[in-house]
């Protein structure tokens, strides 16, 4: 048996956008075991529910993460709306869908850039992030913010988007598609990219199911699993949504799932813009949450759930958010065992870790 060495990986590492620590047990260059430890960026946001009234808590929840901030705000609002039995106007539902899917495009483009960076393809990284700027500009034009959007509120939305801006969004996204296609070909077909991704970190469908993987990690392993499908969201059903599934289970499959989701999200946004009805974007809200409720949202990284418990007061008793990275860490540890040390950054990135979400 070769001599075992323990190499600390992180919390500060060039490939890690956020702090997570891994103790990598190595035999020569092969990882035998990976022991993760988190807790470097815990901010106690859930505890703030004791000090912030529930309508204002949206501003705290959407700051859990800077990438999927819209989804977090929306998930919290869905949880409170379910708790209080509020039905928001249809136009608000469509606008939420549009922004949520735009957030997915933004997140996946960011992730693709980071992946390219992790295997040293700097020009691909920069070009991917250049495309992401278009999406951020669209966010800025429609919501007023580039990272934290502050448009969701319990009972609907804080601002409407006019028809001209929606038409502009549709046009910009249509222009974006060929540019994404050009870079998608590099990710999918290029031999140097393929040699770093194909066959690396294989996770079978059985393993993914047993370890509770969610989102693109589960779908890359062949599991047809998506909250948008499972919740039978009326809008997604109307728009003919079908999750993107790949069966190979390796890093390349997880990358392909996200690339396919990019195009799918753009199509969903365009279809939603065509169908969006006129009308109000919010309803008046009276009273306080009194029950317990769990809302689920398919974030770009996978399923996130939002638990709220009210007691008929302005302050909620409890807020609990379970984020997709939390669910995907066991799958990441599984793929790391048996991998080469040089592949560790790629394997960590293929679950698209968001440690800020995980620790809140």
């Amino acid at each position, binding site marked *: 048996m070769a001599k075992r060495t323990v190499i600390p990986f992180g919390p500060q590492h060039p490939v890690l956008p956020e702090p997570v620590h891994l103790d990598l047990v190595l035999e020569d260059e092969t990882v035998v075991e990976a022991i993760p430890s988190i807790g470097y960026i815990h901010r106690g946001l859930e505890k703030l529910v004791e000090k912030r009234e529930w309508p204002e808590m949206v501003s705290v929840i959407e700051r859990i993460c800077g990438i999927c901030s819209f989804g977090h705000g929306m998930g919290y609002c869905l949880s409170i709306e379910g708790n209080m039995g509020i039905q928001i106007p249809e136009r608000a539902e469509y606008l939420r869908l549009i922004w949520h899917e735009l957030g997915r495009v933004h997140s996946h483009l960011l992730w693709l850039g980071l992946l390219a960076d992790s295997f040293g393809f700097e020009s691909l990284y920069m070009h991917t992030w250049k495309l992401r700027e278009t999406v951020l500009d669209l966010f800025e034009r429609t919501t007023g913010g580039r990272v934290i959007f502050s448009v969701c509120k319990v009972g609907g939305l804080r601002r409407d988007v006019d028809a001209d801006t929606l038409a502009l969004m549709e046009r910009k996204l249509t222009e974006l598609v060929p540019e994404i296609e050009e870079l998608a070909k590099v990710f999918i077909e*290029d031999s140097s990219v393929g040699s770093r991704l194909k066959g690396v970190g294989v996770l079978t469908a059985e393993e993914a199911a047993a370890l509770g993987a969610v989102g693109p990690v589960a779908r890359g392993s062949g599991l047809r699993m998506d909250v948008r499908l499972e919740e039978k969201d009326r809008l997604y059903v109307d728009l003919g949504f079908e999750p993107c599934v790949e069966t190979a289970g390796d890093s390349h499959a997880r990358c392909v799932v996200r690339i396919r989701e990019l195009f799918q999200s753009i199509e969903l946004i365009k279809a939603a813009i065509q169908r969006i009805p006129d009308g109000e974007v919010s309803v008046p809200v009276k009273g306080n949450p009194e029950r317990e409720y769990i809302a689920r949202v398919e974030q770009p990284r996978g399923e996130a759930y939002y638990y709220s418990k009210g007691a008929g007061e302005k302050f909620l008793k409890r807020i609990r958010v379970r984020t997709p990275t939390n669910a995907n860490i066991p799958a990441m540890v599984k793929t790391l065992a048996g991998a080469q040390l040089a592949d560790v950054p790629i394997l960590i990135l293929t679950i698209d870790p968001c440690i800020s979400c995980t620790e809140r």
Partner: protein
Amino acid sequence: MKFLSMGKVVLRSLFGKPSTYGYPFTPREYPDTLRGAIGIDIDACIFCGLCARKCPTDAIEVNRQEKSWTIKRMQCVYCSYCVDTCMKNCLWTEHTHVVPDTVKQVDTYKQEPPEAEEEAAEEQLETPASTEASLGQTDSESAGQAETPEPQEGEPADA
């Protein structure tokens, strides 16, 4: 499998214009919808303090006695909850951000008393007897306090 599949994109970028703005020589054009720095029409403000209560980062301070409205610019997170809350619509979001600085910017806006009131106060001060002057001052102060019933009306029921 393809080799050099990104060559076309790279060459196009190499000979094309830069994708970035020429900041600071080319100023950034913000959309009209941008939630930027908070602006205030201090003359319209009634100092009810709702904006300060709604501010998630406690960046706003309202002093009803001194009729002043203070914002810690670096603490503001541009959520515009204060703008939505303002009953008098005297707050708005500018189409620019606060410029970076090495010190934490704090802006204080003070409402000047209306000229008519000032003149009346000056006239009372100019009365010959000192006791009358002091009484006049007291009266004007108490009148000044009594003249601001709106904040009490504007207070939310749960205040």
